[in-house]
């Protein structure tokens, strides 16, 4: 696919992820919309350009794996999985309803295509290291992708895991930090700043780059660069806007877990369709 066509295709997929996410959360009336919308472009690139996966064989031994450590963004991941064919998108409307297979936070025991249970922040960093380590032990050529939140990086466990990943030369681990600058109680810089995140990651022995997390072409190029990287884990800081695509939620800390009424849904869908 020509690069401009590919970018157009991936942007379309990102829009579809946002649409399904907004609809799913609107169907239950409230949910983690802000941090779901901020990673839609990343998920579009991973699921429609990068990952070696087979929805007809979700347990395929040499598949690439993904750990959404910021597990509250489950609705965005479920939307990507539905679009990729793991289940019908109508399932998304059961989000958080009694007996659902689609809970707020990712659950590998419930949902087809989910590689790891997450929800207690920081833990996905370690479990992703375990998955990547097993791929190395089993001499598989596959990769493990890890998505962290920026606020999540306040957890000490993230740094234990990165120290471990560098020590074990887990170059098949490609992590992303969704750097939208906001956490529940306000700007990350006001609450407990991550400081010079690139310097920290570099000093921990990671290959690192900071990119625009809403530019599918830049994400794709950078991930492909990380995939050829040898001897160290990669951590790509994706600068994003919390709530990206829905004006009411953009750059709004309270969009972490927000009410989505039918009126907000209507306006939000309009906003998303109008995205460039």
């Amino acid at each position, binding site marked *: 696919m020509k690069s401009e066509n590919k970018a157009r295709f991936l942007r379309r997929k990102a829009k579809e992820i946002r649409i399904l996410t907004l609809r799913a959360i609107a169907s239950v009336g409230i949910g983690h919309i802000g941090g779901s919308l901020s990673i839609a472009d990343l998920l579009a690139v991973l699921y429609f350009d990068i990952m070696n996966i087979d929805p007809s064989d979700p347990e395929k031994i040499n598949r690439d794996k993904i750990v959404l450590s910021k597990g509250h963004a489950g609705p965005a991941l479920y939307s990507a999985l539905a679009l990729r064919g793991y289940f019908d998108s109508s399932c998304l409307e059961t989000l958080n309803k009694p007996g659902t297979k689609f809970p707020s936070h990712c*659950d*590998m*025991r419930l949902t087809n295509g989910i*590689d*790891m*249970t997450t*929800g*207690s922040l*920081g*833990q*996905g*960093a*370690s*479990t*992703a*290291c*375990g*998955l*990547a*380590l*097993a*791929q190395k*032990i*089993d001499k598989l050529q596959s990769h493990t992708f890890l998505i962290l939140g920026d606020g999540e990086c306040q957890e*000490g*466990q993230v740094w*234990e*895991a990165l*120290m*471990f990943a560098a*020590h074990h030369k887990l170059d098949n681990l490609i992590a992303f930090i969704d750097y939208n600058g906001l956490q529940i109680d306000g700007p990350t810089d006001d609450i407990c700043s991550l400081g010079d995140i690139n310097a920290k990651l570099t000093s921990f022995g990671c290959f690192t780059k900071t990119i625009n997390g809403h530019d599918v072409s830049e994400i794709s190029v950078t991930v492909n660069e990380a995939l050829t990287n040898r001897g160290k884990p990669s951590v790509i800081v994706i600068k994003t806007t919390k709530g990206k695509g829905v004006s009411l939620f953009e750059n709004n800390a309270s969009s972490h877990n927000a009410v989505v009424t039918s009126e907000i849904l209507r306006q939000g869908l309009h906003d998303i369709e109008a995205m460039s």
Partner: protein
Amino acid sequence: MSVNIYDKIKIKDNEMRFAFCESLIDLASRDERIMLLDCDLMSAMGTIPFKERFPERVIDCGIQEANMFGIAAGLSASGKIPFAHTFGVFASRRALDQIFMSCAYAGQNVKIVGSDPGICAALNGGTHMAFDDLGIMRNIPEMTVIEPTDTLMLRELMPVIAKKHGCVYMRLVRRKCESIYRKGTVFTLGKANVLRDGIDVGIIAMGYCVGQSLIAADLLKGKGISARVVDMFTLKPADREETIRTAKKTGVIITAENHQINNALGSTVAEILAEECPTPMVRVGVHDMFGEVGERDYLAERFELNADAIVKAALRALERNK
């Protein structure tokens, strides 16, 4: 059920940690999925021989317990069978959320080995004295909780633990402990072993207190009291049937454990009996106290966990039940 025990309870030279390492090597030689994880306590746990035999199957994570249990969960999700060791205090307290969430809630197959239970931490003192680990682990859904009583039982149970899919918390003395069982004894997860029959008082014990209970039974016999001694080495799932049988047979129950009296063996037995067969009880264990430094025998006396304490508890219960 076949139970065969020594007449005299005494400490043998073989240490739990060496039996653990040898049986893990044996398992690993037959199953390539077996792995060993530790947090800078391999030397302390005597597992260096495993590393020498299977260097590619050992991950010494360094001093990061939270990370280790996450790594173990990731390895398990990839089909490995990780045995992850640290001291019981760190497994149960420092890494509780990781064990709960990444291991148990996620439906993984991680074998958690928490060493130096209670007074066995001895000279490491109160900071390292797990008097609460069993109670903490017991409250995690689907978690199997066991404390092998001696090296023979440990060797017999290791293949069972490895084969059973799911999370297991194994509380393990690290160094020497009493030898209770002779070869030929059958050990079944979830089934208690009756070590001595008796009709006046039932003593249900775990771990260190099993040997002490047998000594206590001898002392009680000298006073004309016949004690039935039960080794409840699987705390969860506990053996309800044997608990009820012992209560019905004796009418008075003593529990004895190297742990707080709350939330572990004493509580489990009390809950079973309250629901099924209310029976007068006295719990031997630590009474809402922190641990402290000292040799094991001193601590057993200090925290009233030894045979004398069990005898006193039995006499008190019998007196109360007159």
